[in-house]
């Protein structure tokens, strides 16, 4: 929603973000002072090898975890100043989430899972918007099924629908295609791309898959808790090349 984004079009940002696990000699710096802006209405991918801190960065900006020092903002809201409950309410009202697995509540039907954030907030569903999202993800005929009766791809589509239905400021996705086969994954990414282009949705995605990253407007590269590079209009091959440079 545009009113919560800043005039210069930043949906979220981190300033000197540091996250340390453990103490003393055993301390591990997952984030070693990251400063980054995520522009609104864009699809940004965060890439990096295992242990580079990409998931930690996303979790701290999304208010799922807290920084050791530095600050993280959603719009103009500084997250470190918020209480547990306020942080939860912020996630509920302004953010959407898609995880790699265990994305759905097993006892609720597909429709109930999609509407869960609104139910938690006690808000009525916008039926028209709901229909639009459901038909776009192509789940119209499986709404009454429980997650256990859906395939992995279908479950992930329900998760995407759940993230988009409340029209959040930003959708955070952590390896959304990690558990899917390649054609289902492509379908998912195409759909996320469409959400950015057609409805102006802001999406931040963590991935290690160059093919997935190629759907984004830009890619941030992370290594050892620091941003090492940034790439506009990525393609699979260019991303792959860059990744090879890291390893080399």
């Amino acid at each position: 929603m545009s009113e919560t984004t800043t005039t210069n079009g930043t949906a979220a940002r981190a300033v000197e973000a540091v996250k340390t696990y453990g103490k003393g000699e055993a301390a591990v710096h997952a984030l070693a002072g990251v400063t980054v802006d995520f522009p609104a209405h864009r699809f940004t991918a965060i890439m990096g090898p295992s242990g580079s801190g990409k998931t930690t960065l996303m979790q701290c900006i999304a208010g799922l975890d807290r920084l050791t020092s530095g600050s993280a903002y959603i719009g103009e809201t500084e997250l470190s100043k918020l209480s547990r409950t306020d942080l939860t309410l912020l996630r509920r009202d302004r953010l959407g989430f898609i995880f790699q697995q265990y994305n759905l509540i097993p006892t609720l039907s597909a429709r109930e899972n999609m509407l869960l954030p609104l139910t938690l907030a006690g808000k009525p569903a916008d039926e028209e918007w709901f229909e639009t999202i459901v038909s776009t993800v192509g789940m119209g005929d499986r709404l009454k099924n429980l997650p256990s009766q859906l395939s992995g791809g279908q479950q992930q589509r329900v998760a995407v629908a759940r993230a988009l239905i409340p029209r959040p400021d930003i959708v955070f996705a952590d390896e959304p295609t990690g558990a899917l086969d390649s054609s289902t994954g492509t379908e998912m990414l195409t759909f996320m791309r469409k959400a950015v282009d057609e409805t102006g949705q802001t999406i931040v995605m963590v991935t290690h898959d160059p093919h997935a990253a190629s759907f984004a407007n830009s890619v941030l590269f992370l290594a050892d808790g620091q941003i090492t590079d940034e790439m506009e209009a990525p393609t699979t091959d260019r991303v792959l090349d860059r990744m090879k440079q890291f390893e080399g």
Partner: protein
Amino acid sequence: MLRLAWLGVRHNPARYVATIVAIMVGVAFFAATGFLSDRVVDALEGNVDREYGTVDAALIVDDSGAAGDFAGNLRIDGAVADRIASADGVEATAGVLTGKVAFRAADGSTFATDATGRLWVEDDELNPVDVIEGNAPATAGEIAVDKGLAKDHDLTVGDQVTILTLAGPADATVVGITKFGSTDALDSGGTVSIPRATAFDWLSSGQVEYQALYVRGSGDQAALVAAIEPIAPKGYRVQSGDDFRADQRKAVGSTGQLLKRVLQAFALLAMLVGAFVIYNTFSVIVTQRVRELGLLSAIGATPKQIKRALRYEGLVIGLLGSALGVLVGFGLTFAFAVGLTAIGIDLPGSGAKLGLGSALQPILLGTVITVLSVMIPARRAARTEPIEALRASAAEQSPLTRGRVIGSAALLGLGVVALVAGRDAKQLGIGALALFVGVIVAGPIIAIGGARLLRPVLSLFGLEGRLAIDNTARSPKRTAITANALLIGVFLVTLVSVAGTTMKDFVVEKIREIETADYVIQSTGGTIDPALVTKLEEVDGVTEVVAFRREAVTLDGQASQIFTGDIAALERVSGIDVSEGSFDDVGPGAIAVVGVGEAATPAIGTTVAVANAAGTRDELEVAAHIKFSIDSTVAGNFVGEEAFDRLVGDTAPTVAFIDAESGAQSTTKDAIEALVDQRPDVDLTEGNFLGQLIGGAFDFLINAVNGLLVMSIVIALIGIVNTLSLSIFERRRELGLLRAVGMTDRRVQRMVRLESVVIATLGTVVGVGLGLFMGWALVSSISRLSGADVSLSLPATRLVIVLAAGILLGVLASLIPARRSTKLDVLDAIQVT
């Protein structure tokens, strides 16, 4: 959130089975005791209305005085009863006269020896029983028996029987069968109705007299009472029908209410143990669902909402379990009644009374306890961090926080000090509570320590033994909570056994020291005639039989009794002795009174007024005090023969003390009993019957309390089954891996069994230890505070049984989880879900 909670319950019913069963068992027990006591109270109160419904005024023994013990022998003279019958406003009277009777069969054996003979009430309205077959007994030789007696002893209308009464054996014809309301008989051992023509001969040695008199009037109850009061004999009081019924109802009601309160206290205890099981189950459920809870938190469920969802689950489970519990409890009521009948206790009333109140109360209680038990797990669930949804598995947090160590040490210290050095009951109570709570709080620490101690023992079982012990130490909190449920039950059983046995031994020992006659025989309404005395003296082992005369009187207006006889012989065979003065000083105008404490005993030299049932009065001077003893309460106050004749008349002895040789007591007793059995009016008691009675009462109490406590142990068993099952579900990947790399199913099952035994052993051993210590502390406190020298008696056999049973329970509890542990396919088990 309510919907989420409901769906959570509906989709995972297996998860909650044990919880529901635990709630159900507790609530069922609670409800059944409620239903049963309500039924008893109801039936007893109903009986009051049936028996006394038409009574407008009642002339009853005034038992409010201090000497109430003697009141049972008072009588209303026939002449007095006649005067009351003709008083203003009196329409009809019903005199009550009862006595023990029995029947003799053709082969000489006796039956229905506990039956009560009752003077038949001719007034239809005042008569509490109905004739359901045949006729009312009217002429000499006719009797009616109640339906129960008729059924039990195959008596039918027209039967010729030999009835044993005060007057000896007599031939009688059964002319009717009676019934008392919903029960058969008015009296617990059966009722034999006897017409006026023979009742006074059979029930009171020929004199026309009554124990109580019920009056039906035409006008106002108060006016009736006022009309009767001036005529009422000494020792009696007149009550209006309404007051009388209210008193009777209160008397029977309070018995039922007491029964209810005691039983429900145990049911509450069972529910408390159930609370541990519920708490534990939900703790495990929260751990299992950490990812689901994390996801909810990530997408915006506030801690409050998560907490509420869990509480709703508790509410749903609680309501379901409690409602089922009430239904099961309703069924259980019948089972209880049948069980009690089987052991010879007939409860009054029939069926079970399903009142709205007594059904709602257990449901409410069960639900509240469940919701309360869910509070802590729910709070923990609310603290679930959203990123935990993304982690593979939650790490076990260390339970040995400094707060727990310090807190439990402080509680244990306070408990021990207060118990060992407490100066009054309050301090001891605080100590006991602190020690108990301390042990519960220290549970996880004890679990780790216990696991360390048991490690070498279990290592003997090989790898699975070591894995089993490490599993109990891995989540010590869960081990502790499971063991605690068992601990509570075992602790209470031990405490009750130790403290009860100690007190029993102490009291019985003290009573043994009191000197008494070896046997006492008393005739109710009849006499101890010289022929009987001679027969008794011929019994092998009997050295002397001293019969004496005794009569109920009033002493300064209070119910009491006087006796006379060969005082030298009585002093020889019984514990009767003077405490002040001498029996030699008791002349024709004097009396020796039983000392019942300084204030209540008339001083020597003062005068007391003694009056008999007919109202004849005499002033006697107190010449001596009799020592208060078991025998002196049997005999009463001593007067000379002259004074006795003047007050009572020339009556025959009704009581005798029997002195026997020491040794060979049981055959002597049997021989005396055989003689006495032929005389239904004569009761035999052992002189030191109090010791036996109290010993028996203690044994009964200890067994009954322990029997009720078993309920809580059953629930603890359910808890172990539950925890193990859930923990096996949680560890299915680990178990799958063990099997994949080659551990046989049998060894996996053995591992689960060993884990269960470890938990059960921890609970049992700590429970017995705590019970022993607390029992010892309480007993030594009694010695310390009262100066009495009570020494601890250890019911060793019982303790060994408790220990063995606890460990056996562990094996029993593991049967289902052990089988389940290897049911899953190896590949499914190790697959990521």
